[in-house]
């Protein structure tokens, strides 16, 4: 039992930290820290900067242009990025499609698609959920019907994150209605410029736009755009859902959010004293800090592969990680008192200065982050997964 990082790991951490210090612009970090929406240019320039070091595709092997990191290095990298308020890497091409192609794709697919992900030429988005198929993903209804060397796709996808910036979409589509629902699904790549596709933004609870509906009407896609065998898409989907859950605990991001919360507690006043001096506030902060400390260790135990309940641990991390993050968001919102109420427009933040700028969007972020326990496999679904493993039924 040794809870220290190796000197090599510490040196790596230092390298990442130095890189971030030297290269992440203060403007961008401030935007992230203040919880503001990033535009396309913000994200693209950050991706490009990371790729100058081959750090963009953290999970890819070196031969495909990734850094070849192990789990610990990825953990360190993610933590340091969170501490520096770097933008989150958009995962659809880099964290999802890339690994899928590396595992399931043809040589041709790897050769043509992977470099364009790294270069930023292709921004990918995800076509998984449908209005009637959320938690019950296997019930998806978007049809792809074979027509010579093409599929003709009809149907609707939803909750497509950052689809408004994307060039291409990977989809789960139904290619057969025989057998179990899981058996007739295929994984298909679609260019969003193909005729018959319409992307409509969905406005979220707090007023922001980050997800979309995608409508497919007689969309013609070459069969060669399928990844893996026909009707074997569920295997890929499951593999990908596993991948979606790495870094699911978000320990780095929650740690940074907690530090910001404490700073806010020192800044705002209640009853003539800093809020941080109030025992009821301080007690809740201390409790969540303790929970986060434990989760950091749970996360490391999973990374180092010694957890007793390996399979369900990622579900546990998803549940507890979101609970902790949402508790921090809750406290950050409450810390503002009445100043949390104004809609965080540019006027409110920039000119009226009702709350400190880094906290003005705290209520909006609280509402937005209610998604954490819903998206990516809701916490209820995660509980079902753990229960299944616990009871073997």
């Amino acid at each position, binding site marked *: 039992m040794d809870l220290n990082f190796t000197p090599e790991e510490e040196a790596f951490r230092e390298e990442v930290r130095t890189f971030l210090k030297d290269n992440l612009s203060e403007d961008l970090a401030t935007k992230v820290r203040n919880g503001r929406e990033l535009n396309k240019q913000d994200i693209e320039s950050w991706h490009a900067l990371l790729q100058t070091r081959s750090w963009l595709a953290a999970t890819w092997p070196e031969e495909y242009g990734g850094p070849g990191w192990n789990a610990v290095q990825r953990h360190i990298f993610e933590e340091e990025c969170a501490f520096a308020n770097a933008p989150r890497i958009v995962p659809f091409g880099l964290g999802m499609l890339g690994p899928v192609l590396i595992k399931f794709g043809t040589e041709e697919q790897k050769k043509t698609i992977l470099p364009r992900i790294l270069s930023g030429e292709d921004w990918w988005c995800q076509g998984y*959920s449908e209005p*009637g198929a*959320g*938690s*019950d993903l296997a*019930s998806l209804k978007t049809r792809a019907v074979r027509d010579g060397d093409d599929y003709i796709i009809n149907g609707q996808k*939803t*909750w497509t994150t950052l689809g408004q910036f994307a060039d291409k979409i990977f989809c789960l589509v139904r290619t057969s209605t025989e057998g179990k629902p899981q058996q007739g699904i295929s994984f298909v790549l679609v260019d969003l410029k193909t005729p018959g596709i319409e992307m409509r933004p*969905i*406005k*979220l*609870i*707090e*007023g922001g736009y980050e997800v979309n509906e995608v409508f497919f009407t007689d969309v013609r896609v070459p069969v060669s755009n399928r990844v893996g065998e026909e009707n074997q898409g569920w295997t890929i989907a499951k593999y990908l859902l596993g991948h979606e859950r790495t870094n699911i605990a978000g320990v780095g991001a929650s740690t940074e959010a907690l530090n910001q919360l404490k700073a806010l507690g020192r800044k705002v*006043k*209640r*009853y*003539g004293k800093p809020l941080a001096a*109030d025992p*009821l*506030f301080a007690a809740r902060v201390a409790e969540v800090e303790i929970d986060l400390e434990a989760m950091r260790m749970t996360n490391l135990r999973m990374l180092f592969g010694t957890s007793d309940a390996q399979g369900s641990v990622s579900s546990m991390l998803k549940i507890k990680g979101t609970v902790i993050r949402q508790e921090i968001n*809750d406290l950050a*919102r*409450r810390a*503002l*008192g*009445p*100043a*949390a*109420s*104004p*809609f*965080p*427009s540019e*006027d*409110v933040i920039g*000119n*009226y200065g*009702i709350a400190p700028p880094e906290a003005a969007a705290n*209520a*909006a972020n*609280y*509402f937005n982050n*209610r*998604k954490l*326990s*819903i*998206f990516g496999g*809701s*916490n*209820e679904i995660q*509980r079902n997964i753990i229960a299944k493993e616990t009871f073997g039924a």
Partner: protein
Amino acid sequence: MDFTPTDDRRMIADSLRRFLSDTYPIEHRNKVAYDGAFHDPDGWAGLAELGIMGALVSEDDGGFGGAGFDITTVFEEMGRKICPEPLLANLMALRLYAAFGKSERIEAIVAGSERAAFAFDESDSFGDLGEISTTFEGGKLTGRKTVVYGGQAADWILVAAKSGGKLGLYEVKASDAEVLAYPMIDGGGAAEIVLDGTPSECIAEEATDAIEAALDAGRLALCAEAVGAMDVLKEMTRDYLMQRQQFGRPIALFQALQHRLVDFSIEIEQARSIVIHAGGKFETEERALAVAKAKNLIGRAGKLVAEEAVQMHGGIGMTWEYAGSHYAKRLIMIDHQLGDTEDQLRKVMALTDISSAA
């Protein structure tokens, strides 16, 4: 003991419910809530015509209601439609005008021809009137009031300010002050009120008790509003669970969701009860304690109901287009108004002081 509402209050509730259903369907509600003046003059005129503002003031003071249960009756209905009109602001203003016999203003507000707002909070004074630093000197007010509910749509601003060490109440013509208007994240408007030697009239040199009473009226109103909103959000959630199919059956059949809906339903009944308690104590010496208890429980229940409702709706509950998301936002943000769960708990702790009681 009798829990039946009086005929008058039942009539007010019925007519207000009908009026709001007709006038503020969710699309119009959202338009009013987030656009333009965050206030609909026609809707406001309709409220006046129904006598809603009059119901918030006693007969002696120019209205025909004014008791705790009148306030809860009106605001529960406002909550059922999460109506964004600045009624909270005008309730507090009415109570203050009434406290100091300003019948001309009361008449105008009750008639719907004028609107007022009450400016008390400052960035460093949240929840603590003692920390107010706006001052009155030589007929002029200087200071900055923040997040003044309804301030964007008011003709008159009542300002809590210090003069000669006393906390007094002063009136400013809105057009004389710098009013920076904005919408709130859960809809409805507020404003920053910047006072820089702004001419004003002294309503009362010492107004602490009247201000506390007006704020308590506002808190009671918010509590009742929350109960109305919770009832509707619960109905929406139940209906959604019965209609939404996953894994081949309505998700209402999943026991884990059933039990969670039950748990928040219990808190809604508790919330309803504590509001009745506060309404009943509103005219007694226990007012402050009863209202603080109510707003603490409402804060906890509102958060539970809002978060669970969104969670149980899944993605759809996260969307602007779905009415339930606005109810959830309103329930969460009510806690930020006039002192939150913790502020109220501190107040209960101070008022009951279990360490020194006999």
